[in-house]
């Protein structure tokens, strides 16, 4: 089925991508309350049901670090150099604010869905 130049599944995929974008940032920041390196972070997110491909995760980590929300450090583990990330003090503040905002949106959405 098509709507204009996009098929219904394409429209859904685009909207899903938009919906996931903000949630992924929130999930990544939350997971990085504990220090992790990229691969284990990806596994942890996948284990909790939030798959994220490396092409999305690593650029996101870099962006968050450049914004001062994360700090990183190269360290050797299991004879290999790995880059470990964790939340910075600014990141912790922002995360609290974002979680508050997410709770508000979630509450509103629940209310809207119940009304519908």
């Amino acid at each position, binding site marked *: 089925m098509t709507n204009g130049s996009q098929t219904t599944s394409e429209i859904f995929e685009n909207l899903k991508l938009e919906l996931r974008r903000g949630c992924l940032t929130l999930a990544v920041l939350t997971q990085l309350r504990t220090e992790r390196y990229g691969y284990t972070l990806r596994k942890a997110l996948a284990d909790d049901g939030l798959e994220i491909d*490396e092409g999305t995760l690593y650029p996101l980590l870099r962006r968050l670090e450049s914004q001062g929300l994360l700090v990183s450090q190269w360290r050797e583990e299991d004879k290999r150099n*790995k880059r470990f990330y964790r939340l910075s003090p600014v990141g912790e503040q922002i995360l609290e604010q974002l979680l508050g905002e997410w709770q508000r949106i979630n509450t509103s959405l629940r209310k809207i869905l119940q009304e519908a």
Partner: protein
Amino acid sequence: MSKTSRNPMDLVDRYLHAVGFWLPKAQQHDIIAELSEDLRSQIEEKETELGRSLTETEMEAILKQRGRPLLVANRYLPQRSLIGPVLFPIYWFVLKLVALFYLLPWILVWIGLMSFSPSYRAEHTSAGWLGAIGSAWSAWWAIAVFAVGTVTIVFAVLEQLQSKSRFLENWNPRKLPPARNPNQIPRSSSLIEVVVNFAFGIWWIDVMSTLIPLDRPEIRIVLSPVWRYFFWGFLFLALVNAVVGGVNLARPYWTVLRASVRLATDCTASALFCWMFKASVIAEITGAKIPPAHAVEITSAINLGMAKVFPVVLATGVVIAVVGVRRILRVRRAATVQLTEVSAVVA
């Protein structure tokens, strides 16, 4: 070395090298080191799961799943565009204007010249019609590339300025143009139309009703008998336009009937102009100080000049007709929408 005997890790190195090629030098090493670590962790995990080393095919599948190197690298790069989303609608609008008012008229004038100017046609069809079309196409293409290229460069520069100064963010709602219904006719333009057509009619009857509109010792212009048709034709059109203008003044919205009358008068005026420019309307120009031979030359030069302008007049007539047809379609569409809305309310 055969394909199957290659070291599978060689594929990883080549992949990382290809990704690195597209990355900025300052970040290249860091990003590749991290990507490499992630890839090796995934490979290691898979090998532990299988209890053996990965084959080249399995390695290939992992890399393919990660995506084309250029696309992977692109995700690390800042979003860049020659013309961004803020300016793009204006850029697109300007391109449409260029196409409508520059490229399309060019084609129409060319068609007009080829159809109605024997000298132009003879000059350009020496290599046959296909050759003429080919050379016109390449000339048009060069003009189109130049026009589109110029507009694109201007907007690319504006985009740079906009990204630095954000000048488009400074705006004032009070300076926005008034919301206008395209089917509404401004009363001022209707009034001007009535006055201009009325004044034209008086002047036309006073000066142009004779075949000798100018009769002075220094110059005398005599028109050919065919002028009678133009005189009555243009007078009739001025009268109709004055009446339509008067009705528009009282009822300032286009209706299908009035838009159709306007299209008919515009088409008739265009046809009369086209005919007039081809009809050699000036029969004779004489003057006390003009030698007879020179007067004949002037007469034929004016008639010839008018005939040469004919394709431009024709192209203008076509554009006017297209505008008139669009107006009728717009009025009909608006009427249909209103009818649908009324039906919905009644239902």
